[in-house]
């Protein structure tokens, strides 16, 4: 501000100084006998260009830059007011394209950069995975204890496992998302309690001894109204009173983006939370534990990995029976926030989406550049006048850059506003996890960089072109161009680029649309429609052994007896809720070099396949004959049958399998059923085997089962009946998650749906912009050549031929752009191919449709200028000349 005042003073000093100089010169000349007019002329001639002298003098003092910028901005705003059409078009183009790009970046940002809310210094966190054969996954609690004792690369390690718990209050029993955590959990994540305290080391020592719990902030609010008196109060979890010792902070939602815990208990309480499994914590063979570590200061992930490898080798030599083949890997903890591999898949998808919307941003830049170029043309006179009034080349250039800068800045700000406004669309997406779609520093930086890039890209080229223009040439009227033929102008080239880029985006959108349609048609191997599910765990209410089996058989009979039920079944795992696995041995086939075989499994009641409508491919499904005491039977899915065929060389059906070691007892494979696809249809089915619930003696079965009921119509209509019939068996056992199977599976095409809608918007925008660009160029050409057209019409040219001339040029530009765009689409299609399904990246049909759409839009864009050219009145056109 002070600088600005000083500058104002300097300015008036120079003005006055030069004015007095001129006055003195004039007076002296008049004194010598010249007339006032003569004296003035002579004095001015002697002095030279006043503006330029003032400018040069001011510049001596430096600091002119800021001063000029304010002036330039004011001038720019005045210019914009003068041509509202141009300004509005350019502004909208920039705003919408930056808005779109920033929106998509918000999505990528949420996946890539954003960390878990409330967690301290997440960059120091690593996930410790255990792999035996196949994907890295959960670890053994005993191994974890060894790492805690031995590993020095970590300042802290924590183990945790999610487990639902029954919570009993005066109003009944409900189920909450529980998380068993080692006492180091909150410390490792760097979290302070919102109230009370977190767990003490001694509370995580003796299995089942210390019934203490920490509430999530939300649970504290809903169950206790956020009252401090909750600390020290008791809460009944699985029929046992737990003392509440603390509350987690508000934003903390655990480390898993899929589910947020409602309540935390010490890991030592595992036997109480998993009553049917016994004490798992002391079994080295049992995995199931998530492990996170915080790297000690200065330790890199590679150094920590080296130490983990060493400890791992030691564990193998100490516990060969359980640890042979076990390997441990440290990964970016962010990968642990989603089911394995999901994050990287989503990221790859996000980047491709990002690349495609960046193309749209490019089209937008080209469009605005073209607008500026056209406008620069009509401003040639103005520029020339300012140049002859003393504006230097650099000064002019700066003015033009300022104009585009202001345009980019205002447009960018509006784009950011659009991104903020449309953020809700992402949040409402049916994604299987919760992401923080925040407008954070990353997003702001991105929007700023995108805006800067835009400003430079569209602003600089035309600005240089305009400022370089020869003054004399510009002062003459613009040289008339031709409508047809001739050297292609810069504007023409830009239109071609626009068309080409929009073809690429349009093709990508088309391919994703086809992919979405194809995925919807995929045979899933079962029929989720019309099936209602409910989840039960009687062991949490004290059921054990044979009583559990009895309970379920009663429930099954009771549900089946409902008039609306056509079929009912039980399963230990609902489709889409993950899988249990076990190691297997095949009779008469010793695996090569001590390799251990494992396979996913589920325990299902005998009428499961009928209820789910899973077709039998070979042999038989379970039936009445498979009951306790009969020869144990196994049903395989097709993937398992194929896998066994590869392993044994024989028919999968004749195979006998043991899950209790190579010594048996063996179970007979009796049939093969279809693979079911509960997740994305593009994923190959994994080998899976089914055991009969009826065959397994009570107590060895799973306590947590889901009931499936298929009715005639909407599954919701079964809900009351199913709930009632289960409660009729025992009303103390809570019935959880009564909902249609379809809703449980979630939107398996969510990713494709997202891609298709984002790309549809992007492609529409790109094509519209290209059309706008084409229209602009043609309209400008017609306007500039009105007189030429007038002459031709006056000389007898047919109006149709004039119109064909304009349309011909439009089609020529579009044609070249289309050709380039198709090549671009074919090349970029390779990057897309991993995301496509049932359609080739070079799909001819899609490319044809894209071409037709584009040509049609181009014709439409050319129509108005062409009609305008046709309607030129030769008399008026010639008179204007």
């Amino acid at each position, binding site marked *: 501000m002070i600088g600005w005042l000083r500058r104002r003073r300097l300015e008036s*000093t*120079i003005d*006055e*100084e*030069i004015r*007095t*100089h001129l*006055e*003195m*010169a004039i007076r002296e000349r008049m004194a010598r006998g010249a007339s006032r007019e003569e004296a003035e002329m002579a004095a001015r*001639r*002697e*002095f*030279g*260009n006043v503006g*330029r*002298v*003032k400018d*040069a*003098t001011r*510049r*001596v*003092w430096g600091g002119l830059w800021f001063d000029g910028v304010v002036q330039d901005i004011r001038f720019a705003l005045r210019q914009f007011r003068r041509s509202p059409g141009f300004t509005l078009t350019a502004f909208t183009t920039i705003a919408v394209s930056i808005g779109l790009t920033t929106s998509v970046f918000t999505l990528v940002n949420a996946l890539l950069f954003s960390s878990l809310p409330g967690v301290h210094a997440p960059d120091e966190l690593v996930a410790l995975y255990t792999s035996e054969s196949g994907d890295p996954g959960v670890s053994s609690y005993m191994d974890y204890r060894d790492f805690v004792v031995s590993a020095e690369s970590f300042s802290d390690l924590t183990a945790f496992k999610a487990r639902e718990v029954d919570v009993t209050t005066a109003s009944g029993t409900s189920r909450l998302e529980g998380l068993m955590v080692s006492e180091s959990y909150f410390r490792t994540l760097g979290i302070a309690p919102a109230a009370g305290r977190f767990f003490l080391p001694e509370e995580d020592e003796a299995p089942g001894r210390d019934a203490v719990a920490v509430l999530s902030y939300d649970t504290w609010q809903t169950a206790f109204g956020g009252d401090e008196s909750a600390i020290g109060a008791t809460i009944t979890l699985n029929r046992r009173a737990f003392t509440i010792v603390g509350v987690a902070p508000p934003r903390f939602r655990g480390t898993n983006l899929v589910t947020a815990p409602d309540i935390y208990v010490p890991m030592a309480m595992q036997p109480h939370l998993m009553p049917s499994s016994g004490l798992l914590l002391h079994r080295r063979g049992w995995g199931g534990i998530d492990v996170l570590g915080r790297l000690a200061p200065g330790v890199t992930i590679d150094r920590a990995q080296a130490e983990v490898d060493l400890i791992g080798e030691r564990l193998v030599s100490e516990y060969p029976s359980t640890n042979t083949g076990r390997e441990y890997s440290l990964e970016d903890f962010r990968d642990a926030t989603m089911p394995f591999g999901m994050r990287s898949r989503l990221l790859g998808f996000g980047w491709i989406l990002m690349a495609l919307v960046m193309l749209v941003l490019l089209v937008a830049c080209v469009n605005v550049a073209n607008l500026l170029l056209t406008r620069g043309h009509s401003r040639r006179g103005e520029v020339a006048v300012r140049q002859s009034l003393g504006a230097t080349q650099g000064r002019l250039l700066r003015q033009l850059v300022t104009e585009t800068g202001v345009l980019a800045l205002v447009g960018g700000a509006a784009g950011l506003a659009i991104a903020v406004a449309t953020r809700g669309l992402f949040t409402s997406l049916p994604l299987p996890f919760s992401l923080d779609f925040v407008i954070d520093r990353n997003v702001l930086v991105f929007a700023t960089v995108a805006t800067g890039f835009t400003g430079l890209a569209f602003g600089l080229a035309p600005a240089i072109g305009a400022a370089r223009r020869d003054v004399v040439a510009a002062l003459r009227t613009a040289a008339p161009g031709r409508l047809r033929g001739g050297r292609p102008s810069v504007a023409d080239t830009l239109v071609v680029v626009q068309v080409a880029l929009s073809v690429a985006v349009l093709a990508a959108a088309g391919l994703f649309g086809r992919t979405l349609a194809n995925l919807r048609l995929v045979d899933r191997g079962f029929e989720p429609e019309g099936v209602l599910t409910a989840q039960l765990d009687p062991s949490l209410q004290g059921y054990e052994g044979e009583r559990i089996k009895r309970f379920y058989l009663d429930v099954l009979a009771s549900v089946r007896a409902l008039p609306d039920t056509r079929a009912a079944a039980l399963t230990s795992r609902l489709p889409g809720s993950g899988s249990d696995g076990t190691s297997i041995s095949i009779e008469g086939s010793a695996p090569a070099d001590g390799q251990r075989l494992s396979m996913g499994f589920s325990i299902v009641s005998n009428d499961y396949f009928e209820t789910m409508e899973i077709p039998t491919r070979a042999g038989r499904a379970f039936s009445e004959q498979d009951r306790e005491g009969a020869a144990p039977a196994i049903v395989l899915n097709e993937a398992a049958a194929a896998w066994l065929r590869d392993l044994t060389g024989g028919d999968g059906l004749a195979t006998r399998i043991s899950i209790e070691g190579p010594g048996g007892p063996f179970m007979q494979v009796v049939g093969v059923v279809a693979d079911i696809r509960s997740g994305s249809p593009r994923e190959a089915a994994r080998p899976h085997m089914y055991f009969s619930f009826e065959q397994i003696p009570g107590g060895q079965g799973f306590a947590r089962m889901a009931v499936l009921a298929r009715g005639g119509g909407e599954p919701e209509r079964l809900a009351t009946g199913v709930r009632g019939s289960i409660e009729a068996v025992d009303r103390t056992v809570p019935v959880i998650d009564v909902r249609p199977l379809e809703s449980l599976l979630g939107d398996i095409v969510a990713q494709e749906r997202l891609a298709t809608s984002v790309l549809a918007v992007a492609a529409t925008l790109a094509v519209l912009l290209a059309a706008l660009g084409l229209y602009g160029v043609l309209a400008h050409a017609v306007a500039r050549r009105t007189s030429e057209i007038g002459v031709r019409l006056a000389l007898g040219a047919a109006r149709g031929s004039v119109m064909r001339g304009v349309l011909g040029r439009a089609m020529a530009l579009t044609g070249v752009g289309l050709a380039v765009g198709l090549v671009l689409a074919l090349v970029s299609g390779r990057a897309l191919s991993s995301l496509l399904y049932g359609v080739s990246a070079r799909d001819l049909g899609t490319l044809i449709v894209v071409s037709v759409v584009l040509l049609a839009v181009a014709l439409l864009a050319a129509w108005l200028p062409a009609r305008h050219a046709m309607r030129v009145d030769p008399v008026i056109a010639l008179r204007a000349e």
Partner: protein
Amino acid sequence: MTKRDEPLARIEMLQGTLDLIILQTLRWGPRHGYGLVQMIQSTSRDVLQVNTGSLYPALHRLAKKKLVEASWVKSDSGQRVREYRLTDAGRKQLAVERDRWELMSDVMARILAPRQEGEA
């Protein structure tokens, strides 16, 4: 653009000499811009044409270097004019510049001496 109308006899000022000339001229007392032009032209018997386009930037440049200082005063005719006067630093600078100029013109004179060119 003004050049075309100038008498051919006038020569353009050598690069970098304007500062020296201004300092030298100001040695005789404070002057305003127009006065400087008049004085320089009369001293050089109108051979030197001072380009006002460079005079004011030069004056301000010297002022910025604190070799001259400026102030508003009333002229004899009662007009408010901006007068420049030499500072002590300016006086010292003038001495340095003049020595350098003398050395330079001496060298130039010797280089351009007709005898050494072997001309008739």
